[in-house]
């Protein structure tokens, strides 16, 4: 195809959009709402995943032994645990270490409070393994396995935090997918309507074009371009908005809630995914909207 032809076709596509301002605007706005929400949900979900992952890194299953279990057996259990692929890391904590760490956590620097227990380690018999998980979701199966090992008295695990976190994340994911799918359908519908109007306005022109030997692609291209431009503009605009919104929310939270020592995913990372995904969605929706319409109304 000639460059001049391409330029001509793009100009015709733009002309369609301008000629049909209200519908074009409505389509762009819907598309923009869609991508805006997508961008917000995406940012939230990615950050949530990030938090969950960090939390998961700290989640450990604690394995206590039967009273008076031999050191050999304890080592053996350690071996069994480290063979599991759910376990990313295991460490042995002796009764003394456990007590030390407990004192530190609960009495702080004020060692006088712990004085009373000096000779009598209240946590005797509390030597244990701490098994760090590769992924919170495998916790249940690992715990079941450990409970079945001979010599294990008790397994402590905290299902609550990690599971709730990933449950919330999944919920956010579902809700956002549902909302976005609905909006995308609306966008396809509106773009298709916009293109339909463009086609009906140009019926005469299309008929003449066909009679003087225009190829199908020549007749169709302006409408495809129209849809693509609406989709792309509709997805590019909200990205800019989401970008500034994200940065200001992050800096606002970091400033106001310094005590929480929160950590956010960098906007660079988020947008390195968000931009291409959104543009592809925008383009896809635009093309879908125009193609479906052209099929129906342009029997060239």
């Amino acid at each position, binding site marked *: *195809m*000639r460059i*001049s*032809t391409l330029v*001509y076709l793009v100009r015709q596509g733009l002309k369609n959009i301008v000629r049909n301002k209200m519908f074009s605007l409505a389509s762009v706005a819907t598309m923009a709402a869609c991508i805006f929400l997508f961008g917000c949900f995406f940012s939230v979900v990615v950050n949530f995943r990030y938090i969950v992952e960090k939390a998961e890194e700290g989640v450990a299953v604690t394995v206590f032994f039967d009273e008076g279990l031999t050191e050999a057996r304890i080592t053996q259990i350690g071996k069994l645990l480290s063979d599991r692929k759910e376990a990313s890391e295991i460490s042995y904590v002796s009764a003394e270490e456990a007590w030390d760490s407990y004192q530190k956590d609960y009495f702080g620097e004020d060692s006088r409070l712990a004085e009373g227990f000096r000779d009598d380690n209240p946590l005797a018999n509390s030597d244990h393994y701490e098994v760090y998980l590769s992924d919170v979701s495998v916790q249940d199966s690992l715990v079941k396995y450990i409970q079945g090992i001979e010599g294990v008295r008790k397994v402590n695990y905290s299902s609550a935090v990690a599971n709730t976190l990933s449950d919330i994340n999944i919920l956010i994911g579902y809700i956002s997918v549902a909302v976005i799918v609905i909006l995308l359908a609306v966008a396809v519908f509106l773009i298709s309507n916009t293109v339909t109007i463009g086609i009906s306005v140009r019926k*005469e*022109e299309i*008929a*003449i*074009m*066909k*009679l*003087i*030997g*225009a*190829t*199908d692609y*020549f007749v169709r291209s302006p409408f495809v371009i129209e849809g693509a431009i609406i989709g792309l503009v509709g997805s590019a605009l909200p990205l800019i908005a989401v970008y500034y919104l994200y940065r200001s929310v992050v800096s606002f939270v970091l400033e106001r809630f310094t005590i929480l020592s929160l950590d956010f995913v960098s906007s660079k990372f988020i947008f390195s995914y968000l931009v291409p995904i959104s543009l592809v969605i925008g383009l896809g929706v635009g093309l879908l909207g125009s193609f479906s319409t052209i099929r129906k109304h342009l029997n060239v």
Partner: protein
Amino acid sequence: MISLENVSKEYAAGIPAVKNVNLQIDDGEFVFIVGNSGSGKSTLIKLLLKELEPTEGTVMVNDIELNKLKHKEIPKFRRDIGVVFQDFRLLKDRSIYENVAFAQRVIEKSPKRIKKRVPEMLKLVGLAEKYRSFPKELSGGEQQRVAVARALINEPRLLLADEPTGNLDSTNSWEIMRLLNAVNKKGTTVLVVTHNREIVKKMQKRVITMKKGVIVKDVPEGGVLGEN
């Protein structure tokens, strides 16, 4: 060459608009098609353009058998045919220049060629100065001349004109006929549907008369027309 063999066209089952037409038109001929309103003249033109499919029979245009033509090949086929309509069918939102250039853009000619050819064509039809005007600013005759320029700019082998003078006064009609005659002299086959008896009589071309979808008379060039 155009040839129709036993061609019929029924819009609604059982009511033929064109019935068992056999016809042959050689390259370079100038032919008038006359007949009452509803006799099937426009239908015949549409069959030649493959705008319509015959219900029966075979249509050959420019040595191409139309029912064997694939959808994809239609544009290329039509590029060898110029069409002029009774109601001009210009694009109202584009200048005269653009209307004529349009025919070249559609078949993807280079901008350079378009810049050269469009003024040439407009000059040929006597509208060189009006290139910036819009269709509604032109008289009927002028608009029809724009339509002729558009039909001729791609140098078609065949020109089909369906009542090109239907909306024009005598002077303008003759102006159009002069143009059509000139392109015919240069080798283009010309097929003109018309109700204008005066023109048909004076031009002394081949005249085909249709009645109720049937060709009832076919008078060769210079022949005696007789009444009706």
